[in-house]
């Protein structure tokens, strides 16, 4: 089974102190650590697990500058066979739709049975690229997949719904699935592992290689433009408890007694 996985390199912001940069259109990225988007980590792991079971190849694709090679190499170290980077100044400013368009042109030139993408990216969180890509490619899709099984020429996928409920669907191949976190346990990649794939070729393709016109990509091929970013309005906010840790702990105990009926 030949599998293509779409990935993105993103800044890790969960534990970071985030500030707005001078342009007012993005966060200050200097000082942030970048890594493979968390959802994509599960997607690439799932692809490799499928390959180990059924054979075939895993090709990993990312749209981005040279720094994206780092994430592509991580995927190669995890067990992907080939890596492709889609890069062109014309791709700048692409929204989810334009990104899906670029990915679709690259994917068309590679024989595939299955395309996996993360449900969403940690940075812009559109949750849109995978399903958009499926429609552009003209293949069926299932999103939010947290379990999957290959059958002959089709897949059985569990979709994560709200409240712990799941929905099982059957999808004919080729198809696009978007992968939810928690579907597997992504393997650890050591520095040695990354070093082993350091020399592996990462093919770079631009707009002309993909027969894409400038007006189809980047901001001109996009539906959305980000105007500015700003700090989320703070609600009433919490009353901050301060003092020495022991004093704060006493206050917490009092609240628990008062509001939680702690005896």
């Amino acid at each position: 089974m030949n599998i293509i996985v779409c990935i993105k390199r993103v800044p890790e912001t969960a534990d970071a102190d985030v500030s707005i940069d001078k342009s007012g259109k993005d966060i200050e990225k200097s000082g942030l650590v970048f890594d493979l988007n968390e959802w994509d980590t599960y997607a690439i792991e799932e692809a490799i697990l499928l390959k180990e079971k059924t054979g075939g190849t895993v090709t990993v694709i990312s749209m981005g500058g040279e720094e994206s090679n780092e994430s592509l190499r991580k995927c190669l170290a995890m067990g992907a066979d080939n890596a492709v980077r889609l890069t062109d100044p014309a791709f700048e400013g692409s929204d989810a739709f334009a990104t899906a368009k670029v990915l679709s042109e690259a994917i068309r030139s590679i024989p595939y049975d299955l395309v996996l993408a993360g449900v969403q990216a940690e940075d812009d969180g559109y949750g849109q690229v995978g399903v958009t890509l499926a429609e552009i490619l003209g293949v069926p899709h299932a999103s939010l997949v947290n379990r999957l099984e290959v059958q002959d020429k089709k897949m059985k996928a569990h979709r994560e719904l709200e409240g712990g409920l799941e929905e099982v669907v059957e999808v004919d191949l080729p198809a696009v699935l978007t992968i939810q976190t928690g579907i597997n346990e992504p393997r650890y990649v050591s520095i040695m592992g990354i070093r082993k794939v350091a020399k592996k070729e990462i093919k770079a393709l631009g707009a002309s290689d993909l027969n894409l016109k400038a007006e189809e990509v980047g901001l001109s091929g996009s539906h959305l433009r980000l105007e500015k970013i700003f700090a989320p309005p703070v609600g009433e906010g919490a009353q901050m408890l301060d003092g020495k840790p022991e004093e704060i702990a006493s206050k917490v105990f009092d609240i628990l007694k008062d509001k939680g009926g702690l005896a």
Partner: protein
Amino acid sequence: MKKIIALAEHRQGEMRDITWEILSKGRQLAEGMGAEVEVALLGKGVKNLAEALKPKANRVLLVEDDRLEAFNSETYQKVLTQLITERKPALTLIGHTAMGMDIAPSLAVQLKMPLATDCIGVDVAGESFALTRQLYAGKVNAAVSFLKGGPYMITLRTGAFPVSEKEPFPGEIVSIPSPLTDEGLARRFLQYVEAAVGEVDITQADILVSVGRGIKEADNIPLVKELAELLGGALSCSRPVVDKKWLPKDRQVGTSGKTVKPKVYIAIGISGAFQHIAGMKGAGTVIAINKDPKAPIFGVAQYGVVADLFKFVPVLKEKVKELKKK
């Protein structure tokens, strides 16, 4: 007259709350645009749901078909493509839910409509809309505009738009013939799988000690588990803890887990992604312990402690032991 079409979301015979949220927002936008609001209801044997929707929209567009019994993006897309092409709404509103995320992007491509997903704010801006979204898991908000002309499609975040009680519409139910045929589908719905029942029902606890990504590794779980035991409460968690298999799924609070309403909810090392907050905002009192003073969880908590959990939780445990004896 201009129209907005909202897509009703229902599952296993029950309307989903998001439907009322998008209809409330849809009505407000319609008033600003001088438009009518219609709601599309697709299903099998859903007349009762159509009746419930009637006061909330100018029109209920009811499409009934045995093949629409459960949601399937493929059948929904066929029906909605025809419905939207015929009725030409200026705006289609869908929830950013497991259903909306599965249908809106492909439907928008087929209809060649610009789509903005997961919006937390939508305002009329001339013939277009000004949108607010969140980036970096809620650390910043973004003002976003459409670059292309309409008609548009927008998906709305669950819980971001309040349900308003306005004068009911007289309403009408318009039955629309289903365009579906017996032609084979490339995607087939098989069944629902209910959540497994765990050893502890976290929805029944008066005190919940809830732990998030900040706990860093499985070996640290006992630290918070012991605190929960000392308090006679239960231990719950946010999604990353379940994704990493440090606690079972039945302990998860949030959109894809459980909705809890304890008297006191202690969020430890949980930053407060909206999916988590959606599951615990009904708690009586929320105490948040986090080392990041800007963590969104402090926006919903009544009490906040800015501290390293590995330093503070042991102190809290000792204090609870000491004061409980008194």
